[in-house]
């Protein structure tokens, strides 16, 4: 069980495109309200399996192979904030669009924090192993269609209510699937770099000379 207690507000501000903009009183209040609501309505859930490398399933494209190069094990994982988050964002798009946008940002922050906690859980469980970052279907040449295979490997639709639609989009939307490598020997711990990101040509952060922080 992962419980969220606090959300990183600076991150949320960054998602709102506003590093460097001063928060006025009303924005500040809105941020408070949305942070609380996202925490209250999230029900973070995750699943993972451990696989010894090499294994055939899920190995499509060069990037995932490079990513896991030198690792002995892989962790295949998925996580979600649950369907209620999508619902409150949907409701607020009708009743208060400004709030919907802030909720959406905090929800993105929240799922990333859930994943960060997941990393810690794995680090604790696999003491003595070094981990790569989480590599998701859709990064680089790793086909997004594999989301379905990851989810069915984890029995995620049944166990945590996480599925994909026909276009490999995750539902609920604030969710993640990923593969992480584990190695006993220190690996060249690859950063989640812009080089493998397929957003690199149009990334808002890069355009402003920043980094998304992943």
């Amino acid at each position, binding site marked *: 069980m992962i419980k969220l207690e606090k959300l990183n507000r600076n991150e949320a501000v960054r998602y709102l495109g506003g590093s460097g903009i001063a928060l006025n009183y009303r924005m500040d209040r809105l941020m408070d309200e949305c942070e609380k609501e996202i925490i209250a309505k999230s029900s973070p859930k995750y699943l993972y399996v451990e696989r010894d490398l090499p294994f055939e399933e899920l190995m499509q494209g060069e990037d995932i192979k490079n990513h896991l190069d030198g690792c002995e094990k892989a962790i295949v994982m998925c996580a979600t904030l649950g369907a209620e988050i999508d*619902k409150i964002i949907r409701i607020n798009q009708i009743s208060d669009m400004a709030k919907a946008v802030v909720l959406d940002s905090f929800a993105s922050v929240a799922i990333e924090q859930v994943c960060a906690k997941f990393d810690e859980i794995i680090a604790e469980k696999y003491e003595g192993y070094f981990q790569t970052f989480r590599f998701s279907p859709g990064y680089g040449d790793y086909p997004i269609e594999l989301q379905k295979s990851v989810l069915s490997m984890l029995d995620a639709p049944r166990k945590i209510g996480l599925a994909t*639609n026909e276009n490999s989009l995750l*539902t609920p939307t604030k969710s993640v699937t990923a593969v992480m490598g584990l190695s006993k020997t220190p690996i060249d711990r690859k950063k989640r770099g812009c080089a493998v990101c397929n957003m690199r040509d149009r990334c808002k952060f890069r355009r402003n000379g920043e980094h998304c922080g992943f």
Partner: protein
Amino acid sequence: MDFKEFLDSKEFVLLDGAMGTLIQKSGVKYDSVPETLNITHPELIESFHKAYAEAGSDIVYANTFGANGYKLKESGYSVDEIIKSGVENAKKAVLGTDCLVALDIGPIGQLLEPAGSLSFDSAYEYFKEQIVAGQDADVIVFETMTDLYELKAAVLAAKENSDKPIIATMTFERNGRTFTGVSPAAMAVTLTGLGVDALGVNCSLGPDELEGVVSEISKYTDLPLVIKANAGLPDPNSNEYDILPDKFADCVADLLKYGVKIIGGCCGTTPEYIVEIKKMLADKSYQPQKKSVDTTVCSASTVVEINGPRIIGERINPTGKKLFKQALVDNNIDYILTQALSQVSGGAEILDVNVGHPEIDEKKMMVRVLKAIQSVCDAPLQIDSTKPDVLDSGLRYYNGKPIVNSVNGEEKSLSTVLPLVKKYGASVVGLTLDENGIPKTAEGRFEIAKRIVSRAEKLGIDRRDVYIDCLTLTVSAEQDACRETLKALHRVKTELGCKTCLGVSNISFGLPNRELVNRTFLTMALEEGLDLPIINPNVESMTGAVRAYRVLSGIDKNSVEFINAYNDAAPAVTSAPKNTEVDIFTAVYNGLKSEGAAVTKRLLETTDAMQIVNEMLIPALDKVGDDFEKNKIFLPQLIQSANTAQECFEVIKNHISKTSGSPVSKGKIILATVKGDIHDIGKNIVKVLLDNYGYTVVDLGRDVDPQLVVDTAIEQNIKMIGLSALMTTTLKSMEDTINLIRQTKELQNPDGTSKCVVFVGGAVLTEDYAMKIGADYYCKDAKESVDTAKRVLG
């Protein structure tokens, strides 16, 4: 086989235990899905069934849980092959015994709308395929369901394509809800209405943790309950479950008092569990439970019990409402959703939904509106139409148990509407009128009420699900009619034992101070036994009268609801800072909605409407837009400003439509998130801004078929189309949509060029790519969309 007889012939019915657990233990390997073992290892599967039958199971589930068209796509087998072989294996295993074989059907594996994008109809088709393939089975079982909507599609598919008995079980989390938020009560109410043969819970939790859910279900149904629990929780390392067979049986024994009759095991259970359960049951008897909560309606998450006056909101209805009619014609669903949300916050517990208008396809609109409301609002709905085919569609696509508004004493109405009410397990409003009109006397109306109730009961509809409306007539026209209405209402309530319902506002037509008359009439009717007043819940005195009545008649125990409703409200009213001195610019720039509206109203007394728009509102919005571009303010602030401008525009629109009749619009624009894409927040932000700059947006929603975009453009003669896509995977749909727009003859000028201007946006788009797929404009954000609209439409 008559399933009811089968059930009656046995004290308890034993199901089997897990199939997956036995497959895992055997160590057998399979590709893609375990159901392929039906064909690759039939003897093994048969041996599992045999083990269960020998352990004492009265029904075994064929190995068909995941054998649907979606999951089998890459398996190399058809649904028909897998299911037929699955049922055959089970049949072989139980040959020569009394054991029955169930066609086992689990969730499809994709989320249905609104959480996902699988449509109700597609879900129905997946289930239908399985049911047709599995017709050799004796029983149909739906299990491990977490979405009531998916389960409703499944039950309808079974009812409409087979005559087999149906057992339906859902999976609940520790918080007493399913993943999609379904409550045990809503499940029980809805499934009982749909006419399943037994219902209950399976999977997820152990029997020791199910008492809350099982006892809740038993309050809302008379049907025999089913439990097929997990053997506790799996150990993360060994994957062994922690509740052993004898303990499992003991836990189940504790639940028998809730009317549990059909018992098996889910994940982690084996034939030993079934043996233990059978032993435990040997000296027990079935304890059927009568439901303790009657007269309910529900959505998937919320059950409203009609145990005192409950407010039905009347405002989703175009009658006499110009803006509402326009919204229907423009397909402006958001307008209707706003009405829904504001009524619920006003105090409505059920919402009436009427979308009848001669210029639209009422059936399509009803379905679209019901789905949209249910995606944002938990209140149960009342489907209101004079057309049986509209009611039929509405009932089919509604999630939960709705009210049908209405049937009346006319033979034609009775014979068309009541069967629908029965089929879909709804409640119904019965109007006390017939071929001869509305009887003048209470006696006459009571007689019609009796007739409606007796016809309903003949069809198997419980009279508690018939809400009689004794009809409010206008008191200024017929002063004595009010007494007759109330008299009839009283008799229906006391002599027929039905709940009553009444549209209240008609009473005061033609009189001054209508609100006072309405409220007084409402109070009188409540005292005579009115259960379901249909009112405008946003008129505080009306809602307040109902709340006060609940206190004074002892329904609202300790005045809890009353205090909740008014405790917070009081200070909010007094403390709201009302700066009446702000100008429009300040109001818009700072996003002060109510101030903006107030100051606009004042200005209109002295200033021309268009002058306010062009010289004050638009410059204020431009300044906000400019600051946004320069990174001085946040997107939410831009939106708040736009919303304030919207309030100001509303005031101006109302003013103009009062003085000249035609609302101002700078032109129509279609917006759509393309087929396959469900991320629509960006599109919705663009919509808010365009709205507020005075454009009329025809919002087609998300996951929009290219053909719908083209059809709407042709129908409404729209020249500007905005498309959004958030994912690389859905850019293809964007391209397809643009291609279709360009290729459609009706959208071309005589020289073959396109009549439509297409602008596109979305996180993954670039200017280059936008041009490559044939768009006219690429807009990097909402602000740029407005600039583009200005350039194109002025």
